[in-house]
């Protein structure tokens, strides 16, 4: 396990059923959320962006922990596939974080009347984006890619220890400065007719995350082993 040929074959099999599952869940969740779920009595239809915004934010945060875990595995056991995983997760996580921020801004305009506020959650998502971009930038800067992966592993582990502290500190900072003009609707008070499609969409985004990461890893493997005989053989057999 963990050898590139094995992983290539295994991930190929996973992608074959994960791809239709992801598309199915996304279509089902989107249709349910956008067409079937009732409009919000205060926000009307504009709240429906929640079905992209919240799943993207949830998976973006989880993605950082996946990256850090892969980093720990890479540092401790020096498993090559862990390096590839870390490398594959970073851009996906960064894009998801950016999606959460952009959809949040688009949602904020009709709801709060402004594109951007320095709210605790928005600010911590922005910092999460910086953490992701830092890992990507560090990887690109190293010449030796094995060393690059280990440097990124150290950085993402430091980030993991720091993330709860960042979140808590930003929370306290916001509590001290909270502007009175903006009121946030409680998200825990969400009705089950809206919650169920949301949970479905979160599941769909997790599948999408896994799918994109696997495809990224396969692309990286093909590039790294483009001269290897096992790969040529496997391609010929397809």
């Amino acid at each position: 396990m963990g050898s590139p040929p094995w992983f290539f074959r295994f991930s190929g099999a996973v992608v074959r059923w994960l791809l239709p599952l992801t598309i199915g869940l996304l279509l089902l969740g989107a249709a349910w959320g956008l067409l079937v779920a009732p409009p919000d009595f205060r926000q009307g239809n504009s709240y429906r962006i929640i079905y992209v915004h919240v799943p993207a934010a949830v998976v973006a945060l989880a993605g950082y922990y996946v990256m850090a875990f892969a980093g720990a595995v890479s540092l401790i056991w020096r498993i090559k596939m862990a390096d590839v995983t870390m490398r594959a997760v970073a851009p996906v996580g960064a894009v998801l974080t950016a999606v959460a921020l952009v959809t949040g801004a688009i949602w904020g305009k009709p709801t709060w009347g402004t594109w951007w506020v320095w709210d605790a959650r928005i600010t911590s998502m922005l910092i999460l984006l910086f953490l992701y971009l830092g890992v990507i930038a560090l990887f690109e800067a190293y010449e030796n890619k094995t060393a690059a992966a280990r440097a990124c592993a150290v950085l993402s582990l430091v980030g993991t220890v720091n993330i709860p502290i960042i979140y808590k500190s930003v929370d306290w900072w916001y509590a001290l400065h909270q502007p009175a003009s903006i009121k946030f609707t409680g998200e825990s008070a969400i009705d089950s007719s809206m919650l169920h499609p949301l949970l479905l969409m979160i599941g769909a985004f997790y599948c999408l995350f896994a799918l994109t990461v696997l495809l990224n890893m396969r692309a990286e493997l093909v590039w790294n082993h483009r001269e290897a005989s096992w790969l040529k053989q496997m391609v010929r057999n397809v």
Partner: protein
Amino acid sequence: MSADIPLLSIREAFSRQFMRHFKALMGSPTDMANPLLFFFMVVTLFPMGLGPNPERLSVMAPGLLWVVALLSSLMVSSKLFGSDFEDGSLEQLAVAPYPLAILVMGEVSAHWLGTGLLLAVVSPLFGVMLGLPAHGLDVLFYSLVLGTVCLTLIGAIGSALTVSIRRGGLLMSLLVIPLNVPVLIFGNTAVSEAVSGGNPSTWLALLGGFAMGSLALVPIAISAALRVSLDN
């Protein structure tokens, strides 16, 4: 290693490393003065950018001073391991029969004494210039003493990660700034609380806790990062 060279105790190894860097720092006063000058000049920029209104400046002073302290700490930390890496002494340290984390801490502590602590000592002067009320000055000093410990340690991780990269200084800032967010919030809030008559001790305690946690964990990260850099 030949048998007739006795092994030092870990404490001795640490203090030699500390003294070596402390003397090097003392030998080049400009290295210690430049960050302070940078601090001074940026503080001068704020009244020009924001207007000389003393009331407005004094409201913003805690945040401004802390942001400038963070930036100047970033600037000095970015070259922390640069000369050691270039002249090969880092490789010697890595193969030395002592824990790299301990040796590195000797260097980082000397660096903190010469830059971070110095910055904290002179900061009340800049506080006065920006109109920070007198009862906030001591908290500014305490918060910067604790805060520069955190900033220096986190900066050292960034420096260790980017030391093998040409023109790594800017990249180092990109890596370190997000990690410094809690330090900035704790420190800045402590000073703001003191100025507005509140109790800053909670925030100072948080800052102290962060400093202690960093002291325990960061040396491991620095030594891991340095070993990675040596492989690049």
